[in-house]
């Protein structure tokens, strides 16, 4: 991923928290994921296809998700709503990235995982960029694994041309 591409996701995360909560979040320097696990209690996963392949993950513990639900005015802070929200955050940040990547940046519906993310769910052949997010007193992470898939785009364009 290029610096510009990483910046798209940083800005997407900052925009989300600012817009939804009115409280700015801070982002620490992104880094390449190593062998350590960064998965927290809930992880929303969005698959990327089309011109790019990969995935966008947003992972958070229960406390910030409850804090976010409160800003939505939601009084039910149970597991289903925390899981729903973590998927929606991943979906929103990935969807917003289409402003930069264009409409060939296809996003899946969210999949939500609970507990430690099994390393098998992260693409082994791709580098994963970790973006640490600090919101209020809590830390969440945005993980992005992405690479260009020009072959598929060519195939789609070829089909469209008939």
């Amino acid at each position: 991923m290029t610096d510009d591409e990483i910046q798209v996701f940083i800005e997407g995360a900052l925009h989300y928290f600012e817009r939804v909560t009115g409280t700015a979040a801070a982002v620490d320097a992104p880094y390449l994921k190593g062998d350590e696990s960064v998965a927290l209690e809930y992880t929303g996963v969005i698959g990327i296809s089309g011109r790019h392949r990969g995935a966008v993950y947003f992972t958070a513990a229960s406390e910030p998700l409850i804090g976010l639900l409160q800003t939505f005015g939601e009084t039910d802070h149970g597991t289903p709503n925390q899981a729903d929200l973590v998927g929606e955050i991943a979906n929103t940040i990935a969807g917003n990235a289409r402003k930069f990547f264009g409409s060939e940046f296809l996003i899946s519906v969210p999949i939500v995982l609970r507990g430690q993310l099994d390393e098998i769910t992260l693409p082994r052949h791709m580098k994963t960029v970790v973006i640490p997010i600090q919101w209020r007193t809590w830390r969440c992470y945005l993980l992005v694994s992405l690479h260009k898939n020009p072959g598929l785009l060519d195939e789609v364009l070829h089909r469209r041309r008939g």
Partner: protein
Amino acid sequence: MTDGTSETSLLKLLIVDDSSVVRRSIERQLKMPKISTILQAANGREAIEMFLEHRPDFVTMDITMPEMDGLTCVSKIMAIQPETRIMVISALGDAETAIEAVERGANEYVFKPFSESELNQALRNLIEAPQ
């Protein structure tokens, strides 16, 4: 489902989004006394079922949803009842998708994440615009 009572207005709104947190958030943020009935659906298929049963006047429509996406659902609603006014509320930030939504019949497009004032302004535009 909220089913308020109003003798002067009987407008119905259907909120379609696969996130129940977002659906309830939209319902809470709405400040539209003209809307007397608010219905909710979690995907396009459910939305069509509810639409056929309740015939809402207005629809807010997410795009990325399981079973049937929002763009397909907009086309289907337009085929059933073309005078329905639809506001797409989506995270998809590219102009092409917004244009496609309008071409399929949507009247407004709001990007997620949205503020309460944006939502209400867009809904006012939707309700008050001439047919």
